[in-house]
Structure formats: structure tokens, C-alpha cells
């Protein structure tokens, strides 16, 4: 398996840390899961699942001390082909996407006051759903389910903004032969904490493309789990994170190939810029991919790249690929963490481009590979979003003047 070239990394780091993962990957079914928060032990911080997460910054989401009495309003504009319902946890559809696999997800499930179910039918125009934090000092639990009908083709932007602490579950249930492009942005205020479990359930011949953008917040931990209900599923998960001084951005993925003839492609890129005298900028990427014995003819690739822009920054990256069948089309994984490539900067500067601008060109190029997945023309075009994210990254770059 060859490793594709990626922008913005020193060449000696290309393909660094390749190889098999360090621990066995549990399938979505083998993991302990429950809707009941009390079924989970309170994490102490040593657990594999929690070892990178600063628990004391979770405002009690993990140990039952969070009041969870705030409200995190979900706004869905009315549109053709879009049905919005507010339901209780007894609705038969709730839980179709998956079951919580950690205590905070179960806490959110046990505590959410109401769930929003958004059904996408036919070919609706691009839809923007906004989740607003409960406000500074407040904690809330949320639940959102996105579902498609067979053969639906939709583009959804799910924006998270505001202040406060939110634990939630996002279920995405793709009907057979439907296609969904989902852009999830974390554009929180500086104080916000978001711990989110994503349950992505893919039907026969369905296609899911997710672009995850993590920019704001004090601590954002997103755990997507992909399961395939039938053959022919095709999932593309790409993400970018930009961690500033003091920020903790964590992405924990499990792609569980349990049925044949499915594809998954994972590409996450993070940039980090820290500052002396405060908590390090920190990103965590865990990429678990499991190809079960039954999952013949699987195609999968996962890739994490981290660009460390300054001192006082730490990127943890753990790719785990476990293959239980010999009958796969292709499988590969890689991870690398590096600094700027001096030769690239020299070349740009030797053409008169000032150093800060040269660095920006390289960082923009680094993220360009992710952002270009957000279409700017055609049916599901999101030109305004793309512009806003470009500008947000510019603003991040301006923070330390890298």
C-alpha cells in the first residue's frame, strides 16, 4: 500500500508511523454498549477510551455531576423534502443508528429532554441545521437523528455554535441507495465543551460523505461509529481540526466492516498552534478500522496528518487497522505528525513571499484537500459555507501570525 503525498509536511515524516495498530479493535457489536448511563463505570482517566481526554474539563459530563438542565436548541428550517419531528426516546426510530459506547454518550441518551428527527426525502436543497449551545455555565444533553428515504440525495450542514457544555448523540440512518453529504462544523465559543457520539448507519448501496470541521471550543470530542447494514455501502469521512493554545480537539473513529463489498475512506488533518504559559494545544485522533471475517471485498483506507505549527502543541495519533479476512480489495492506514517543510518555505520566500504568508500558503494547502470536499458548485453547492470556513482558517492563522 503506498501512501499518497500530503501537503505541508517535512519529507522525512512522510509515511511515518506506518504499520499495524497497537491494540485489537473491538467491533461495534463487541464493544460494551448501553442506553443506560448507570451501566457504565465512571471513567477515571486510565481507560483506553478516556486516556487522552482531560476529564476535569468535562464539567461533570462523565461522573453524573453535570446538571444537564440547559437547552441546546436545534433549528431546522422548513424546506421541501424535509420533515422535522420532535419525539421522545420511546419513538421506535430512536436508536436505529446505534447504541452509546461510552458513559458520556449514555449520559446524554439518558438525559435528553426531546429528540429531533429530520427525514430527508427525494432531492431537497442543501439544508443547514443549527445546534446552539446552552449558554455559558450551563450543561445540556441533546439528540438528533437524520434519516434518508430510499434513493434520497441530500446535503446537510450541521453547525454547532454558542457557549456552554453539550453532550449529545447524532444518529444518521441512511436508507438503501440514498446519498448524504454531511458537513459538521464545530464553531463554538472559547468556553464551550462538546462531547458527541455519532452513530452512522449505512444501508445497502448507500453513500455517506462526512466533512468534519473542528475550529472552536475549549474541548471538543467527537466519536463517529460507522456500521454497514448491507453490502454496497460507501463512506468517506474527512475532517480538519485547528487547535489553538489550550484547545483539546479529539476525534475517535470506528469503522466496522461487518458485511462484504463496502468501502470506507478516512482522511483527517489537524493543525496545532500553542502558546507559552498556557495549556498545550492538543489534538487526538484515534482511527479504528475493523474488517470482520464476513466483510470480503472491503476497500478501506485511513489517514491522519498533523501539522505542528509552533511549540506548546501536542498531536496524538493512533491508527488501528484490524483485518480478519484475507479476501479484501485493499486496506491501508497511515499517520504522520510533522512541522513545516523548510525547503518549501525557502522556495516560497526565495520568490519574495514573506515568511508569514508562505506559512499561510502551506497551511491553506494542507487543509485544501479537506475543504475541497465541500462542493462550491452543482446541486449540493455550499459556496457561502466554504467561504466562511476559509475565512475562519485565515483568522486562526492570524492568531499567532504563523
Amino acid at each position, binding site marked *: 500500500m503506498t501512501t499518497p503525498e500530503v501537503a505541508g509536511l517535512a519529507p522525512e515524516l512522510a509515511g511515518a508511523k506506518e504499520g499495524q495498530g497497537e491494540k485489537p479493535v473491538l467491533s461495534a457489536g463487541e464493544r460494551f454498549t448501553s442506553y443506560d448511563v448507570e451501566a457504565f463505570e465512571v471513567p477515571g482517566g486510565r481507560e483506553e477510551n478516556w486516556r487522552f481526554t482531560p476529564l476535569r474539563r468535562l464539567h461533570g459530563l462523565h461522573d453524573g455531576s453535570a446538571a444537564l438542565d440547559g437547552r441546546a436548541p436545534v433549528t431546522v428550517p422548513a424546506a421541501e423534502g424535509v420533515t422535522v419531528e420532535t419525539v421522545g426516546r420511546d419513538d421506535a426510530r430512536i436508536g436505529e443508528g446505534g447504541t452509546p459506547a461510552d458513559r458520556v454518550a449514555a449520559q446524554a441518551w439518558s438525559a435528553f429532554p426531546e429528540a429531533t428527527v429530520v427525514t430527508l426525502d427525494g432531492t431537497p436543497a442543501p439544508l443547514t441545521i443549527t445546534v446552539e449551545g446552552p449558554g455559558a455555565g450551563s450543561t445540556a444533553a441533546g439528540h438528533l437523528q437524520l434519516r434518508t428515504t430510499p434513493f434520497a440525495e441530500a446535503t446537510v450542514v450541521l453547525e454547532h455554535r454558542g457557549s456552554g457544555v453539550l453532550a449529545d448523540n447524532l444518529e444518521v440512518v441512511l436508507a438503501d441507495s440514498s446519498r448524504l453529504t454531511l458537513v459538521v462544523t464545530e464553531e463554538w465559543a472559547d468556553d464551550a465543551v462538546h462531547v458527541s457520539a455519532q452513530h452512522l448507519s449505512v444501508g445497502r448501496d448507500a453513500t455517506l460523505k462526512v466533512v468534519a470541521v473542528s475550529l472552536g471550543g475549549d474541548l471538543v470530542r467527537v466519536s463517529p461509529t460507522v456500521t454497514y447494514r448491507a453490502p454496497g455501502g460507501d463512506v468517506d469521512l474527512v475532517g480538519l481540526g485547528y487547535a489553538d493554545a489550550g484547545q483539546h480537539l479529539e476525534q475517535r473513529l470506528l469503522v466496522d466492516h461487518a458485511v462484504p463489498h463496502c468501502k470506507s475512506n478516512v482522511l483527517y488533518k489537524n493543525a496545532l498552534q500553542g502558546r507559552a504559559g498556557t495549556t498545550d494545544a492538543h489534538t487526538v485522533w484515534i482511527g479504528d478500522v475493523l474488517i470482520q471475517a464476513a466483510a470480503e471485498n472491503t476497500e478501506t483506507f485511513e489517514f491522519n496528518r498533523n501539522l505542528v505549527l509552533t511549540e506548546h502543541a501536542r498531536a496524538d495519533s493512533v491508527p488501528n487497522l484490524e483485518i480478519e479476512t484475507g479476501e479484501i480489495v485493499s486496506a491501508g492506514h497511515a499517520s504522520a505528525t510533522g512541522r513545516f517543510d523548510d525547503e518549501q518555505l525557502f*522556495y516560497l520566500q526565495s*520568490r519574495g513571499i514573506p515568511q508569514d504568508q508562505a506559512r499561510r500558503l*502551506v497551511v491553506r494547502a494542507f487543509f485544501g484537500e479537506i475543504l475541497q470536499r465541500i462542493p462550491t458548485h452543482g446541486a449540493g453547492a455550499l459556496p457561502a459555507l466554504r467561504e466562511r470556513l476559509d475565512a475562519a482558517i485565515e483568522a486562526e492563522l492570524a492568531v499567532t501570525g504563523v
Partner: protein
Amino acid sequence: MSTLEIKDLHASVSTDDGPKPILRGVDLTVKAGETHAIMGPNGSGKSTLAYAIAGHPKYEITSGQVLLDGEDVLGMTVDERARAGLFLAMQYPVEVPGVSMANFLRSAATAIRGEAPKLRTWVKEVKGAMSDLGISEEFADRSVNEGFSGGEKKRHEVLQLALLNPKIAILDETDSGLDVDALRVVSEGVNRYRSPENGMLLITHYTRILQHITPDFVHVFAGGRVVESGGPELADDLEKNGYERFVREAAAAS
């Protein structure tokens, strides 16, 4: 009228075993309107001289001076040197994935000219310069040098030379890796750049490019310094007799 003065320049390259001295007292003056060819054997330090003048971070100046119109070049950052009017066409141009050639050229031109070129005239200017060098338009959308062949990279170095129009250009083996037709096209590009206002330092191994670009002066480089200077006839001498004599003399002198 610009002048680049290199005075008793000593430089080391940083290696895993510490600094390794390469340049051992280079003296050379290039004036506007002049073309100087530097010829020398592999490993004699020609690229080191070029990189040292451009300010590559791997090379440390241990003593000596480089002045552009009397200004201290060595005190400038890499980009300041470029904006002061120096240009280095590199022997091995660097790939910058994800940055389009179009974006790169415009950023560079904006930096060098001090203001963003007017879009309409700029597009025309770039297209014209690309077509002069036989570069097809699709290259504008490709990442800088990424996946370019050796010859394509060299054409793009000369494209930048044409668009940035520096006071003094240093061309490090811009001729190597070019087939006969490409050599002609690239040489024509270099000759278009030459003018009474511009000076040039042309580093090369081979005399074949000197049949297209006639130098005013030829310098032999060996052992990290200029060991002999003369007119174009010196190139013919090197063509016939090789570097053998100079290498021996340089070795004896150091």
C-alpha cells in the same frame, strides 16, 4: 545600474556531523548588463554559492560579504533578498503540494512588485510568458512543481524569472535535464530577460548552453572558490581540456 559584489565569501553547510566548510573565499562582481558563467566540477560548491546568496537556512556564512548596490544582503531574510532584486533559479526546484502555480506566481509577483498586479493584464502577462516558454495553460492549476518532469521544472523557473524580472539572476544548472528543443526554448527565455539593467550569473557544467547564451565572463570554480576568470574563450578551453588542471591546483592550494 545594479551591482552584486561577493567578497571573500566563506560558507559551511550544516550536516549531521556538524558544519562542513564548502566556500573558501569567493570573490566575484556581477554588474547590470553582464552575464557571468560559472563552470566547475561536481561538488565544487557552485550550488552552495547560489544558496548562500539566496539565504538558504542550511548554509552558514562564516565570513565575507555579499552586497547588492552596496546593501548588505547577508543581513536580509530570504524574502527580503528576493524583494531587493535577487533571484535564484534552482537546480532542484521544490515541490509545494496544494499550492497552485497560478496562486504562487501571483503571490510572488505581488510581493516583488509591492502591489497586486491588475488581474486583467496579469492573466494576459502570465499566459504570454507561459506560451513563450512552451508551457501549456493547464499548468496554472497544478501544484507548484508537483509531478513536473525535470525539464518542466526548469521551464517554470525561467517563467518566474520572466515574470519577476530581478536585478540580478542566478541560474543554477538551468540547462541540465533539458533536451535540445527545450534547451533552445529556455535559452531564448533567458536571453529575453537579459538587458542593460539586469545582471546574470549562470552556473553550468556544460558549454552547450553557452552556445545559446553568450557570456561576457567565464569563471572556473573549484574547491569552493573562483580559480580562474576570463572571457568566453575560457569555456572553449574547458570544453577541450576539462577541469583536471584546476582541480589539481585547487587541491594543492587548500
